[in-house]
Every structure is written in C-alpha cells, then in structure tokens.
C-alpha cells in the first residue's frame, strides 16, 4: 500500500534529522543589566526547617540591599538534580546554585557548566587571598579554573557524651587513635546480642564514619601529580583500613554492629544515634551541635578534634574539611544579577557571620572567622580551630566528580565485611591496587 511506504520513508527521514540535533546551547555572555528589576532563581540543598529559615533570612537581607533583584529560592535540591537541570538548560534552569559537596567542582569547572568567576571577581575587586582561607580556595577551583566560591565551611570533629565519659571514668577526650580505641571499648555496653550503648560506630555505612573522613586524619594523598590514583602507593590508606577493621573486631564484629546500625534513627532527625545515646562518640560536622540542642539532648556534649594516628600525634587538631560551594550556571541569562547575590552571600562579613551562626556552620571568610559577632560557644570555637589548622584537608576534585570516592568506598565496604560478591576480601594491598586500576579506568572513560 503506497501510503504506508511513504509514511515509513518520512519517519526515517525525521529520525535521521533528529539525530543530528544534539549539541549544546552556547553559554550567553553576562550581558544583563544588574540594576534593572529582575528575578533570579537560587537553588540550594538545605531542607531542615531551621536551615531554610536561615537562608531565607539571608536572602531577605540581600533583597533589602538590592531592591531591584528578587530572589526565588528552591530548597532540598541535591547534586543529581542540579546536574540534570544544568544539562537541560532552558528557562527553568537556575541562576545561582549552591551544592553541599565539593566533589563536582571538577566537572563543573572542566566542562564550563558554571561560569568562570574570575571576570566577576576582578570587576568587583575581590582579592581572593585576602578574603578566603587557602584550603577553601583550593576546593572551589579545578586545574586553575575558578568556577565556584565557598559558601560557609564544614569542619569535622569528635563529639562525645560527657556523661557517658564520666560514668566510664574517662577524664579527657582521646587524642590518639589507640586512646580512642580504648575509650570506645570502655564505653561499649553489651545487652543480649546487641548493645545498650556503643562507644563508636566504625562501620563505613555509619553516617559520617566514611573512608574519606577517616583518611583525612592520616593526610592521605588520593592522586599523584599526573592525576593517577594513589591509594596503593600511599601507605595511609592501608593503615586506615586496617585500623578500622581492628576497631570493628574489638567492638563486636561487623555483623553485630551492622544489625545495631539498622536500628539507628534518621541522621538528620531528632533520633540521631548520638542524640539518643545509642553511641557515645561520633565523628560529625559542626552542624551537629545546633541539631543536638534543637533535639533537646539531655546530656553534656563534648567536642574535640578527632584523634590522630599515634605516629602523627603532633598534628592533633586537624580534621576533614568540606563546605558548601556556590556558583553561577553558564546558561543563566542573568549572570550579573546572579553575581550580586553570590558576592553578597560569600564576601559580605555580616551576611557570612549571621548565616554561619544561624545554621551553626563555620564561616568561610577570614574576616568572618575573626568577627566578634561569631557564636562564642567554646564547642563551636573548637571547630573554628579545626577549620584553621594548617594540616586540615579535604578530598580533591576530579573530572568525574565523586566517582573515585565511590570506588574506594566500595572496596572499603567489601573489606570491612570481609565479603564481596566475587569472593572473600582479605588482602588490603591487592584490593587497593585493584581499586586504583578501577579509578584510573573510570577517569579515562570520563575524558
């Protein structure tokens, strides 16, 4: 039947034509007038009611200073959604984006997803070295390209239940890992085939007890100078994994701990295991202070830097750093207006200090760190010190984002449980070497 054949030919033509339509929309130049009335969309990841209130207050203060710029804020946006929206572009894409993880800075800078901020910084005469601590500058750029700025900082430390410490007869927070292991064992109270109190949850699925957070205490180096994975070559990783496995064994074994972990409440909710007393010590970020107070925790909360390996005892005080990053998508049509918001939120000392106080994060500018308005809580000050410690470190950026961390984490899971879907895992060195290979292959695929 002729009609049918013609239809078939037409569809083939459409298909071929459509295949050719791919390509990206070219990024518009920042040509908008920031003094005209405009509405910009700001995506962020905060969702806890107190945090949302804090950022909205911050935005209100900005709008008061810039009455012509209206900000539409959307919260609870995680990185997947950000990447997706930026890929799609179009009128629904945001003008300012903030993200909790520094992982994707590599992707965002390398593929021009975020605009280069250098012209904006120059235009506003912002001197980076005078504004931000060095570590924060490091994790917001990739291979020389600056496409994000730090928006508040996170420092990780040791939280401990002072009441539990007293009951167990521990007088001071542990400074080295052997002191830590001993304390954890002392604080663990077995009940039946579970626990009534666990000293510390070392399992890698235990919220913030992750490979990267632990590895920071050894100042481990993830990549060689030419970008190859360094996990097997740097003895720090093997040491970290062995330490963790020993701790797991001494506290009751992987299976028993996993079962206990399954009974933990939501990490971000009121029933966080540290709040409820299910664990006596926890590795967590500075936000935990505020959250614990809000949850009405009854015991005395102690804060200290997380213990360091015995052979690095003089570097006590360091910790893992991370932070929220903020940038301007290159597809935005309102980049100049967006820059005003970014500049305000990242460099205006009052804004940084009040926001930091409100959500109990570490401020990200040198001026803010010295500000007398900053929360004077001594526990909070501990985190400020950790943030400024010269040996505090973060995880490096990479072209495929956090993929290398996922691969390392995958191996760590296999190692801690002793099992892998392809057989038993007992050899750390061989496992790390295999992990290196996988990371390198993934990076090659991403290039």
């Amino acid at each position, binding site marked *: 039947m002729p009609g049918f054949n013609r239809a078939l030919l037409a569809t083939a033509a459409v298909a071929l034509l459509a295949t050719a339509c791919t390509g990206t929309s070219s990024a518009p130049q920042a040509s908008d007038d920031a003094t005209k009335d405009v509405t910009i969309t700001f995506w962020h990841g905060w969702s806890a009611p107190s945090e949302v209130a804090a950022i909205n207050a911050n935005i209100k203060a900005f709008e008061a200073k810039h009455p012509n710029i209206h900000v539409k804020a959307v919260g609870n946006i995680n990185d997947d959604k950000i990447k997706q929206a930026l890929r799609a572009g179009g009128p629904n894409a945001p003008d300012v984006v903030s993200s909790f993880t520094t992982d994707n800075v590599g992707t965002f800078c390398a593929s021009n997803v975020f605009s280069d901020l250098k012209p904006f910084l120059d235009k506003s005469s912002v001197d980076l070295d005078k504004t931000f601590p060095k570590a924060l500058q490091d994790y917001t750029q990739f291979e020389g390209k600056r496409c994000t700025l730090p928006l508040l900082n996170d420092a990780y430390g040791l939280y401990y239940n002072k009441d539990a410490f007293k009951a167990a007869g521990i007088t001071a927070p542990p400074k080295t890992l052997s002191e830590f292991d001993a304390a954890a064992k002392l604080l663990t109270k077995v009940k039946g085939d579970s626990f009534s109190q666990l000293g510390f949850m070392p399992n890698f699925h235990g919220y913030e007890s992750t490979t*990267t957070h632990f590895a920071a205490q050894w100042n481990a180096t993830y990549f060689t100078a030419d970008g190859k994975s360094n996990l097997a070559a740097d003895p720090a990783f093997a040491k970290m994994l062995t330490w963790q496995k020993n701790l797991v064994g001494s506290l009751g074994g992987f299976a028993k701990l996993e*079962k206990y972990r399954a009974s933990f409440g939501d990490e971000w909710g009121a029933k966080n295991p540290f709040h409820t007393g299910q664990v006596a010590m926890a590795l967590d970020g500075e936000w935990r202070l505020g959250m614990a107070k809000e949850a009405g925790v009854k015991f005395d909360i102690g804060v200290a830097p997380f213990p360091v390996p015995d052979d690095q005892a003089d570097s006590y005080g360091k910790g893992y750093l991370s932070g929220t990053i903020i940038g301007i998508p290159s597809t935005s049509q309102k980049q100049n207006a967006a820059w005003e918001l970014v500049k305000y939120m990242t460099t205006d000392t009052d804004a940084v200090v009040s926001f930091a106080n409100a959500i109990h994060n570490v401020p990200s500018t040198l001026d803010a760190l010295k500000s007398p308005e900053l929360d004077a809580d001594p526990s909070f000050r501990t985190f400020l010190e950790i943030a400024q410690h010269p040996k505090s470190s973060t995880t490096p950026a990479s072209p495929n984002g956090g993929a290398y961390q996922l691969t390392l984490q995958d191996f760590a899971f296999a190692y801690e449980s002793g099992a892998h879907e392809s057989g038993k895992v007992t050899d750390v060195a061989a496992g790390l070497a295999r992990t290196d290979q996988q990371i390198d292959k993934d990076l090659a695929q991403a290039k």
Partner: protein
Amino acid sequence: MTSTATIPTGRRRTIDPGLRRKRRREALRNLAFLSPWLIGVSVFFLYPLISTVYFSFMRYDGFTAPTWTGLKNWQYVFTDYPFFWPALRNTLWLVVVMVTLRVIFGLGIGLLITKVKTGAGLFRTAFYLPYLAPPVAATMAFAFLLNPGTGPVNNILARIGLPQPGWFNDPAWSKPALTMLALWGIGDLMVIFMASLLDVPQEQYEAASLDGAGPWQRFRYVTLPNISPIVLFAVVTGVIQTMQYYTQPLVAGKVASGVIGGSGQQFEPGYPDKSTLTLPQLVYHLGFQRFDTGGACVIALVLFALAMVFTALLMRRGSGFLATND
C-alpha cells in the same frame, strides 16, 4: 492483503477507475487511523533507538558537544565497568528464581482460590489487594517490615527462636527479600490462572477420574495441558518485567542503606554489595549520575538486545497471539 484479481488476459491494464478510487480511499483511511501510532513509533521508538546506537559511539556528557570515540564505551562497559557483570548475573538470578517462583506460586494460589468454598470473595480480595499497591509504597513497607533491627518480621522470628537474616541489608538475602515482595504482589497472576483453571472443561476431569486417575495425575494430564498457554504467557511477561525491574531494587537499596542525600555518603548502586543491581539501574547511574551518555547507551542496547531475544522467543512459541481471523 489485497488479493490480485485474476483478470482475463487482454484486460489486465484496465483497472476499473472505481476500484482505483476505492483503493486510494482505503489507503487514506488506513493512514488516518494509524497516524497516531505511526508518529508515536517513529518519534518515541525508532528515533531514540537510532540515537542510542549513535551515542553509544560518542563521548557526550550533556554539556560539551559530542565527540566520536568509536568502541571505547563498549570496551569500558564490558571490561572496566564494575557494575555491569554483577547486574547481568542478578538479572539471570531474578529470571531463574523470581519468575519461576512467581509462576508456581501464582498457579498455587489460583488453584487454592478455586477450591475455596466459604468466603471465596473475601479471600480473593485479600489475595489481590497487594498487587494494587504502588511499587514504591510496597517496597518501603517491606523495607520497614524486614528491617533487621526493628522490623516486625525479625521480631517474630526472634520470638519463635529462628535465626533472623539481614534481609535488605545482607547481600545473600536481598534478592530473596525482593522475591518475597514480588510474591506478595501475585494478584495479577492469581486472577489469570484462576480464570484459566475454571475454563478447563469439567468433562475431561470426570473422564480422567473414571479412568482411575488420582488428583496428581488429573493435574498433570488434564489441568496442565489446558492451562499451558497461560503458563507460557506468565513466564514470558514475567521475564519481560524482570528486564525492566527498576523501582523495587532501587528503592529497597536506598531505604535499607539509609542514604538520603546530603550526608557524607555516596549513593551506592545495588546496596548491599551490588546484590540488587539491575541493568535499568545502570542506565540511570551512567546516564544521569555520571553523565556518561555513551556508556549509558551501551547498556541500553544490551537491555534492548535481551528484550528482543525474548520477544522473538515469544513470537516463535505463541504464534497464536497474532491470530488473524480474517
């Protein structure tokens, strides 16, 4: 199929103009009726399929323009991507174990419901209801029920004194737990088996029992042959559904691992330990989390090939499907 009319020689070229008009009208009519499908199949099936093949040879992250990389993506997926082969193995496990158990259980429940005399309607409703539960809701319910620490199931097992498996948190038990979830939603299979069991002619049973056949023999020689097309249908649709198995393993893994997003954890596909990975999840992982469009398209094509193999098998065995009564 238009029949070629046998026109006496000498008149072959002259076709009745009325007939030509009729044929043209028919052609237009066919086109009109079929047009939604024609557009649909070309825009939403053929075009993306060709695109997928095209992109499997390109490097495209969605931001910069695509570049040709030849077989690099294929080589990466088949040799370097650590999640690919576990996902294939899982699919095989699911096809062999989950589909089989579903068919057997569905047949069993269908049989049971035909034998129930009192309260048949009530039982039927109870058995069918779980099938209606939205997959996300059902999976979350089961993730809660099977929580190794606080779930009711382990609670009851503990009281009886039986060992309590880790269910969705234990790589050895996660797929059996998913299978239990699948058996819970057996309602659709129950109904079609029930209908087909009731369709078996009663006389055949009576004839068999007159010949001295016991219950098992009656089942084997009367019931099974009569319902075998339905069994085949259940198996094939079960396999097709397994190819597409996405929501339940993904939600189960997410909920069981406690990873919500925003914490220090990376999202781990196939928690625990890659045991719940399926190919569709990999398409999402590579395509929408890693932004490796090329790799995602390779996996999509593997998925397509597997689905087509089973479709071909269906065509061969169940050609009754295409019944052309006219």
